[in-house]
């Protein structure tokens, strides 16, 4: 589904990604872990098409297309979804109107007819239940005045609505208490299928107790330095990131 080859990216002359290689297939969950500043969030942003980052080398194939050539909205239409670490507050834009516009644009791109108001509300109700989000949140302006947990839940709700092929969860667990973490993880697990894939970017192992990954990759100084199964996350938790750092320094 997704193939990343030797991806390098910089922001303001500072190289953040230094040759990433990654293969993600349908049905898989990949976890990307790493210490602060290792480039985890940058990777997520580059895949979603944030313009602050300049890709200097490498390529990214997504379902046979050169992802790097596409505008952010086209990537979304192709099926990429980024759950933001810090979802932006947009005063005056209602969540419902926003979601309806997005969904119908994506449907249009896929050659599906637009949903009318009734069908849309029906779908919304269904997905709201799935991620245990309250109607009152959605009648407000997009993310405005939401707590950290509410913002993250809203991200998962949007993911449920848009049914992406590849979801990238950027530190979705940060700032969540245990209950919110469980709800978010449940949402992700329910949406999982053999046709879609998920990349979970996280600093801690605890999210991975709820969303069990097939592969764990450790990012350090802009490179994937270790890959393994879910047990790698536990090993990391036990030994700490210093273990990776020391190992890398030895090499």
């Amino acid at each position, binding site marked *: 589904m997704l193939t990343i080859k030797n991806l390098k990216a910089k922001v303001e002359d500072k190289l953040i990604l230094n040759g990433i290689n990654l293969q993600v297939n349908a049905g898989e969950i990949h976890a990307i872990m790493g210490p602060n500043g290792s480039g985890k969030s940058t990777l997520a942003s580059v895949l979603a098409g944030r313009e602050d980052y300049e890709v200097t080398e490498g390529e990214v194939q997504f379902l046979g297309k050169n992802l790097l050539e596409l505008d952010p909205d086209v990537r979304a239409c192709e099926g990429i979804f*980024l759950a933001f670490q810090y979802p932006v507050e*947009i*005063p005056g834009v209602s969540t419902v109107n926003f979601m309806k516009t997005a969904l119908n644009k994506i449907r249009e791109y896929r050659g599906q007819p637009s949903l009318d108001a009734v069908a849309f509300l029906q779908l919304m109700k269904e997905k709201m239940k799935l991620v245990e989000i309250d109607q009152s949140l959605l009648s407000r302006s997009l993310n405005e005045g939401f707590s950290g947990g509410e913002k993250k839940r809203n991200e998962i709700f949007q993911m449920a609505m848009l049914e992406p092929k590849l979801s990238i969860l950027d530190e979705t667990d940060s700032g969540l208490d245990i209950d919110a973490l469980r709800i978010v993880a449940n949402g992700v697990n329910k949406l999982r299928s053999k046709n879609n894939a998920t990349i979970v970017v996280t600093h801690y192992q605890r999210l991975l107790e709820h969303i069990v990954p097939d592969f764990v990759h450790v990012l350090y100084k802009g490179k994937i330095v270790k890959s393994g199964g879910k047990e790698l996350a536990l090993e990391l938790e036990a030994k700490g990131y210093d273990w990776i750092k020391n190992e890398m320094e030895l090499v």
Partner: protein
Amino acid sequence: MSAITSDIDLKEKIAQAFEQTPDRKNIQRTEALQHFQKLGLPGNKTEEYRFFPITRALEKNFDFDQSNPIESKIKSIYQFLIPDLEANVIVFINGIYSPVFSKVISPENEIIISDLRKAVNQNEAPLYFEKYLKTSADPFTALNTALWQDGVFIQVPAKTKVEKPVFILHINDAEKEQSICHTRLLVVLEEESELTLIERSTSIGTNNIFHTFAEEILVKENATLDYVKIQNDEGKLHQVANSLIHQSSKSKLNTFTLTMNGSLIRNNFNIAIDGENCESHFYGLYLLNGNTIADNHTVVDHIKPNSFSNELYKGVMDGNSKGVFNGKIFVRPNAQKTNAFQSNRNILLTDTATINTKPQLEIWADDVKCSHGCTSGQLDEEALFYLRSRGIPLNNAKAMLLYAFAAETLEPIKNTELKSYLDGLISQRLNKY
């Protein structure tokens, strides 16, 4: 105030109309004319009119030797009304009250609407006329007071809620030739009364229009006024509107001014908060394109303690348009415990559009909370990226954000038909981006 030499002739020419003015022997008119002649027309060095080239435009575009008000051939005003809004309609065509098109539907015990020219010589109107709006302060107030042709006097009796809004429509018919007119309004809301007042200025034809407008509105104790001004004029309108709203204790005021079209639009809008425990929401939106220049000069004057005011003006400038905002907040020495806030936010869509903004605070009392903020810039990049990452194309995302930016100013409007009409005007304008 500096008047350049060539403006002196122009000033005299404009003042010629005084000879044709009814009641020209009236002492107020004579004094006002003297004030106008003393103040002169504002030059480009006149601080208050620095960005508003009205004098040059009057000189270039108008023939002040032509005097008689022209006949209008308008058959219907339907297209200028607000859909589904049941209202008392008062129509002025080229500055003259039109009994044919005007229609009062509220019962007489709710509202009294009378001819201002008659009223100034009798009853209560003389108590209020020119009481707060001073002719010595602004040349166009002076000019209007000297030359006004027609106007209405609206009184809402104490403890009365006027159920249906009052809709005042100024139609300038410049189909055949230029139009020059001066209109006047006096509104008194007695204690504990309520009124929604809507004013719209519009035009037909492509000749030049010069319209001065002066209004005084008194909101007495415990009274509530909702006031909306719509300036969506397709014609070559050169308008200077001087508005003053005087608030007594415990009164409530909501205002909204929408400016979208016209050549040169100037609003001098003053609110005098002359009582305790008043509440004022003072909102405005200017959506400009083409070569329109819109200049909003606002004053919120806190004279008495313990009141609250909140001002929000927003602007989106496209094409070669120019937005000007000048907002003054005064907190007088007695006005302790005042809360006064002001915000002016602007978006420029092109490199040929400009914004000149000058928010001012003048505070002489220490136990107050006052702030102002102003910004100029583009749409928030973060928000744009967020919308796009959900599959919304750039243009739609921009339109959504512009609409959200603008629509915030509609918040204080309560009347649903009015609100949806204004909402429609805004989204129609912003959807094309």
